[in-house]
């Protein structure tokens, strides 16, 4: 997972116009270098994608023979109000996650980018959740939040003794919180790296001109982090389409359908209800939404991504 993330981050950093120097390609002689990435891409993305598209036109219970179903899966899924509930929830969690995580990780990133030793010590604490798997995080929170045997009862804090995972509205809020708890460290790390790449001379010049810390943040740090923000947002938005393990263990989509996001809906239809056809339809919907969002966020970086942020340095 972390490997995949860092690869993704590197390549999108490059695409998003990380410093482009003189190292341009000289013709097609080096095209074979893309081969490993291409093979992985075809095997793990294109082939399953084609498979899923084919499956979406079939009826299959995951156990027996596969039969043709024509358009019936598509019609049944799109006439099912459950799909729109899941879609709405997915976007709600996506937007809320972005709104919660971006400011926190941006500020933490700027803070931990400083060279003071106490900041490094605190950074270690901030990055701890990165070491934990989603399932472990979910199980831990589930135990802590248990309405009868949880932390609140143990410590005697009536304010915390809510039925966090049993009331639909609270459960959605809690899912957003736990996702933020788990992923803020990762985005903090991205911002920390971004901030450390901003040349010191910019800040020195600003200080001479009499700009305070706040002014420096808004006039130098934020604009310089433009592409880092786009990268982090892309990962957040596309990633939020696929939050699965955490919610699956934490709430299982419940109570009722109140946290049944698209990825979970796909899983439950496919592997619990043995309806692989409709589950594949949802998988295709997920891919389309993911691609559209990713392309849109790439566009935000501006048409001419080669333009420098460091003009005149």
């Amino acid at each position, binding site marked *: 997972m972390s490997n995949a993330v860092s690869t993704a981050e590197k390549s999108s950093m490059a695409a998003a116009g990380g410093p482009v120097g003189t190292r341009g390609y000289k013709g097609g002689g080096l095209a074979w270098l893309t081969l490993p990435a291409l093979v992985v891409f075809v095997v793990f993305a294109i082939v399953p994608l084609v498979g899923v598209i084919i499956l979406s036109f079939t009826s299959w*219970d995951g156990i027996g023979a596969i039969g043709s179903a024509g358009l019936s899966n598509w019609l049944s899924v799109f006439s099912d109000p459950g799909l729109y509930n899941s879609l709405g929830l997915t976007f709600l969690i996506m937007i809320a996650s972005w709104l919660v995580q971006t400011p926190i990780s941006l500020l933490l990133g700027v803070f931990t980018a400083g060279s003071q030793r106490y900041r490094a010590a605190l950074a270690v604490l901030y990055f701890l959740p990165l070491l934990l798997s989603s399932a472990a995080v979910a199980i831990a929170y589930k135990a802590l939040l248990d309405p009868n045997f949880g932390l609140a009862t143990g410590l005697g804090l009536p304010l915390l003794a809510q*039925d966090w995972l049993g009331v639909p509205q609270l459960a959605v809020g809690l899912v957003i919180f736990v996702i933020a708890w788990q992923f803020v460290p990762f985005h903090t790390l991205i911002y920390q790296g971004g901030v450390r790449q901003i040349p010191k001379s910019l800040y020195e010049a600003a200080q001479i001109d009499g700009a305070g810390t706040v002014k420096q943040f808004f006039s130098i740090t934020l604009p310089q982090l433009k592409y880092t923000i786009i990268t982090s947002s892309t990962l957040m938005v*596309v990633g939020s389409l696929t939050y699965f393990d955490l919610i*699956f263990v934490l709430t299982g989509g419940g109570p009722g*359908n109140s946290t049944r996001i698209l990825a979970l809906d796909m899983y439950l239809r496919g592997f619990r*209800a043995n309806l692989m056809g409709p589950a594949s339809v949802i998988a295709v919907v997920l891919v389309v939404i993911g691609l559209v969002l990713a392309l849109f966020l790439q566009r935000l970086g501006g048409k001419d991504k080669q333009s420098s942020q460091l003009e005149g340095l």
Partner: protein
Amino acid sequence: MKQSQTSRRSFLALAALVPLAAVTTTACGTSGPGSSSGGGASMWYLTGEPNQTIEQKAVDAFNSANPNNKISTTFFQNDAYKTKIKTAIGAGQAPTIIYGWGGGTLKAYAEANQVDDLTSWFDQNPDVKNKFFPSVFGAATVNGKIYAIPNQYIAPIVLFYNKELFAKAGVQPPKTWDDIMSLVKTFNGMGVAPFALGGQSRWTSMMWLEYLLDRIGGAGVFKAIFEGKPNAWMDPAVIETGTKIQELVSADGFIKGFSSITADSNADQALLFTGKAAMMLHGSWTYGSMKKDGQNFVQNGKLGFVNFPTVAGGKGDPKNGVGNPAQYMSISSKASDAEKESAKKFFKDGILTDTVLTAYVNTGSVPIVNGIEDKLSTSADKDFLNFVYDMAKNAPNFQQSWDQALSPTAAEALLNNIDQLFLKSITPQQFAQNMNATLGK
């Protein structure tokens, strides 16, 4: 030229992002265990004591007696197992011995030719067949053929109660639905939750509907549903069942936060034996785990148990039971001949041996073996064991758990709608309509 480079790069960036997205959704699947050598067969079973140890010991004993036919075991949590086994079977990665609860799920496997027909094997081994209660073969039979060997114990759903709390409140265990509603008031007044419930697991909530529908409408209502008769779910008894459940929820009949409690954590049982809840409707198998975890709660005679109450004006026989008639083991048709041979040997010599029988009886379960009465009567848990045995024996109708009896598709829809019914996010009418749409699926 420059522009085309850019787009190639963003293409690759996307190429890196999209599989990342795909990986996170699919990473939960792991491959099944590889086929073991030496004709050994594999078996998956459930975690959770005391049964996990009993089954492991049964396998160990069989393995040391049959070094050439060893069985390897892997253990999974109950709710996780139900999904895992289906996926593994579909992917051709199933263990040799497929553990389950028979019924609709077994039917799906049998119709896809994923499990072996054992009818002729039983004919060749009449001793094995005659060992078990005859009634337990019903859920193992698909289209007249037997696809699984019954195993373990009969597990009816029982209404457990905390005797200490009942004595403190000066009340008697419920005999009618009206008793239940008045007990709810009494215990809420004492600051004790009337019923423990692990609602997040959903099949726990389903047990309430199974009994209520039987008591209100009789066994015929679900029989019609099971047979897929048109509009079977629209029976007025279904609506009344849903209405009664929502009345109970509205009266705070269940523990606060029941919809976030899972049965796999055994928190529902803990609520009962720690005195935070007065009653619990649950499978008879929880007797064994409460005996183990309850710090002498069971041993000191504080656990009471009764049959589910009657409902005024209801058509159901109050002696009817619901639950699991037995657990079942099938043989994967994808296994090698040597593995199948080992599995059959295990079925013959390793299942419910005398040692295993005694171990189950000692933990408060009634094994599905003929002539078990003597063993039950001499056990320390004879009150409970005889209660379960008599209930199973005298029940005019013993209904298999709905989620096992129905097809997986209908069962998932059922569990989802039950969850919403308990949350009161759908009305009993909507529940009936939603379920009616799943008939025949």
